[in-house]
């Protein structure tokens, strides 16, 4: 057994807790989880069955934590997990799993399958079986500061650009501000309209806010690749920044996994609860709406639909807020079939969009989203995750569907009654 494999197996042994033991002891091989997974429904290939993706973890559980499994291991009757096997499983654990968690919603015995995928990735990464694309993104986040290699000067350049465009100063490192705003590098590189929207919305709401020079990047590919040590380094930057600036609330940007990393995993990674609260930008906007701090006028033309980012809705509990906000700016708002917590993934979550060799499969799986969209007849697709947005744009382009994809925050900002400054 190679040293890295040994380390991987020992990490997996540590990962196994009562829920995982219970889940593996409950599975009856009914295959219903496959029916909930877009990689199975769109390919019909049984190897994409979610519970099957966990086979190496299941065997380690059986061999290490059950009486009969230990007996089988001791007598040499059971097959040990090997490097070759984990290499084969890479495609199943990363390329064909976006950690969307739809399988966890349908399993009749109640198995939280995505909970286990997250844990299996820890062992995969340590033993050297994580895909190049996510490994690179994580390395860049650790060494440079962001997965796309964005550094502070790039952020400052964008701040300047937005200041010129809106005439609103962009605060940086302001102590005691109510909100600390984070960005995803996707927003810095591809969607500058997000920062501009924030500036205009905050001005109208009359709220104090700031960016942080040591923590501007929200995405956490450490979570996606499955290395808690690195995920902890990344999340600690944000915690230190927020505590240094004494902000009350940190706003997670339009990025699903960033929200999961910061809102649900962060405190567990650093081993203590935060001194501040974490909210997704849509939660903040909905509070502003409810408190009558922002007012909009006019509506978007055509028919709009909303794509629920998995990590925000099914895995994050932010369900009502986007609906309230959509109704502010859309007269003709239609839900997709399966909208809400049963929505289908864009196909690029969980780091999958960073895996080049997974592109063909991703585009095939996109047929599910295509069908959902066609059922609505929508002319504009709104979402609240920059990664979903890029993946949706790629998919729509591939299938030659001329539907623009926009972020909800910027759409709200576009309709602000700008003269009503609080």
């Amino acid at each position, binding site marked *: 057994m190679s040293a890295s494999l040994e380390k991987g197996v020992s990490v997996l042994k540590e990962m196994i807790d009562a829920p995982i033991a219970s889940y593996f002891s409950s599975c009856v091989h009914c*295959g219903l989880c496959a029916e909930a997974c877009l990689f199975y429904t769109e390919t019909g290939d*049984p*190897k994409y069955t979610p519970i099957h993706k966990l086979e190496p973890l299941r065997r380690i559980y059986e061999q290490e934590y059950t009486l009969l499994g230990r007996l089988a291991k001791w007598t040499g009757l059971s097959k040990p997990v090997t490097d070759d096997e984990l290499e084969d499983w890479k495609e199943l654990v990363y390329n064909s799993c976006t950690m969307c968690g739809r399988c966890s919603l349908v399993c009749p015995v109640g198995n939280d399958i995505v909970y286990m995928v997250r844990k299996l990735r820890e062992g995969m990464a340590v033993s050297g079986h994580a895909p190049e694309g996510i490994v690179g993104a994580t390395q860049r986040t650790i060494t440079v500061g962001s997965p796309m290699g964005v550094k502070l000067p790039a952020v400052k350049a964008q701040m300047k650009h937005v200041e010129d465009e809106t005439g609103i100063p962009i605060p940086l490192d302001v102590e005691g501000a109510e909100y600390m705003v984070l960005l995803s590098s996707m927003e810095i590189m591809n969607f500058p309209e997000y920062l501009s929207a924030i500036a205009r919305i905050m001005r109208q709401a009359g709220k104090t806010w700031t960016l942080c020079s040591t923590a501007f990047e929200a995405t956490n590919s450490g979570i996606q690749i499955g290395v808690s040590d690195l995920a902890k380094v990344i999340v600690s930057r944000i915690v230190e920044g927020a505590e240094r600036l004494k902000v009350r609330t940190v706003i997670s940007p339009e990025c699903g996994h960033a929200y999961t990393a910061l809102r649900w995993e962060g405190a567990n990674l650093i081993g203590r609860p935060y001194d501040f609260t974490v909210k997704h930008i849509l939660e903040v906007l909905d509070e502003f709406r409810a408190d009558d701090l922002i007012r909009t006028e006019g509506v978007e033309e055509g028919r709009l639909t909303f794509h629920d980012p998995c990590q925000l809705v099914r895995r994050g509990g932010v369900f009502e807020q986007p609906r309230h906000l959509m109704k502010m700016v859309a007269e003709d708002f239609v839900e997709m079939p399966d909208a809400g917590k049963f929505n289908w993934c864009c196909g690029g979550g969980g780091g999958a969009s960073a895996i080049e060799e997974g592109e063909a499969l991703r585009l095939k799986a996109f047929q599910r989203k295509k069908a959902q969209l066609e059922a609505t007849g929508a002319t504009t697709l709104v979402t609240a995750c920059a990664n979903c947005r890029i993946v949706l744009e790629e998919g729509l382009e591939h299938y030659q569907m001329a539907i623009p994809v926009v972020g909800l925050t910027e759409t709200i900002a576009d309709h602000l009654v700008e003269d009503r400054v609080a």
Partner: protein
Amino acid sequence: MNELQLLTWVRGTGLNIAVGLFLFGVFWRLIEIYGLGRKRDLSAPRYAQGASGLHTVFRRSLPPPGMLARSPASYIGGYVFHLGLLVVVVFFAPHIKLIGDLTGLSWPGLPSRFVDFTAVLTLVAMLVVLADRMTKPLKRFLSTFEDWFTWGVTFLPVLTGWMAVQHLLLPYTTMLALHILSVEVLLVVLPFSKLFHAFAVFGSRWFNGAVNGHKGVPV
């Protein structure tokens, strides 16, 4: 050993061994699984109606939207044979009498013709889910020896019980002995196979509901 001696053995020593192994096995497995514990979640919880472990224990008994159409054999076959097993095991008068003799507990049974009918329905439903497992590529891919074996171990007690009552194939005494023997095999196999879902299902649903309920998502 003639059939009377076999019947005496399965009703005495055999039953004691099987029940003993069953109780030990269940106890052992529960400790083995739930003794592992889990870490406290340090993130700030979000409260939402219907989002908790207990909710999920019940909610997950119903098919989520769209799922029934995707796999009708799993759901309909599954419901019929699980409820059927419940009826024949718990509401058949001779079973109630046996449990009464052992524990002193008693409750009213259902008419034997209804139980008979349910047994046949259960057998048919089990054959349907078996056929589904054999013919559907997805299920065949997932199936291991354990899946076929545990199906047999569950099917035989129902089949032999029904045949004993109907006086089919073998003399009543022999069939009854085989019936009890097959139940004993089931009792021994249950804790150490996927049949343990009969117990673990509650813990699994509860964990899933609690972990996601912490995030305010009713699952």
